[in-house]
């Protein structure tokens, strides 16, 4: 018979909940969105950086 602990563990594996903070919701879309934001900032920054180096 599966213990309550095992059942919670199973739940956390199937719906993306974090083991350490069982209250964390599924925010994978958020995470990817902010990573895209970071990528945009990085790309823009390096674009101007390269322009600066090139002109220097």
């Amino acid at each position, binding site marked *: 018979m599966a213990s309550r602990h095992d059942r919670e563990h199973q739940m956390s594996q199937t719906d993306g909940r*974090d083991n350490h*903070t069982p209250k*964390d919701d599924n925010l994978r879309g*958020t995470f990817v969105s902010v990573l895209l934001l970071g990528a945009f900032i990085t790309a823009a920054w390096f674009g101007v950086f390269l322009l600066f180096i090139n*002109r*220097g």
Partner: protein
Amino acid sequence: MHIHRLEKIWIVIGTLMLVVFLIAVGIGAFVMDDHPPGHSKGIKLDPEKVYETPPFDNPRLEKIGENEYNAYIVAYVYGYSPNNIEIPVGATVHFYVTSADVVHGFAIPGTNVNMMAVPGEVNELTYTFDEPAEYLLLCNEYCGVGHEYMATKIIVKG
């Protein structure tokens, strides 16, 4: 205080990104000596006496080496002295710029030459002109009704 695991990761990633930028410009500035313009020697001069204070008592381009020059330039409403400066291609120029009146800009589009000419202060930057062209040197800080006419040329002969 509860912080979502993914938010913690994001904050770390975001901060790392910013640190990378800071290291890049930090190395550029303090290791490669490519710091923002600004005379580190802190020379001050009386703006009312600018034309009596060396080297601006004789604004000029001065050859100091093989292909190396000092340019002592006064910005004023609405021009630069000297103007139409001619240099050979590959020349390294140390610009020393001040203003005889209000704050002006000192900018050469297409290059990294871009700094403020402030009365009472001497601003400085060094640039090597690798491409021949007739560069536009213009004022990009509003200085009065003639601001949009304040410009001259840096003629790099190749």
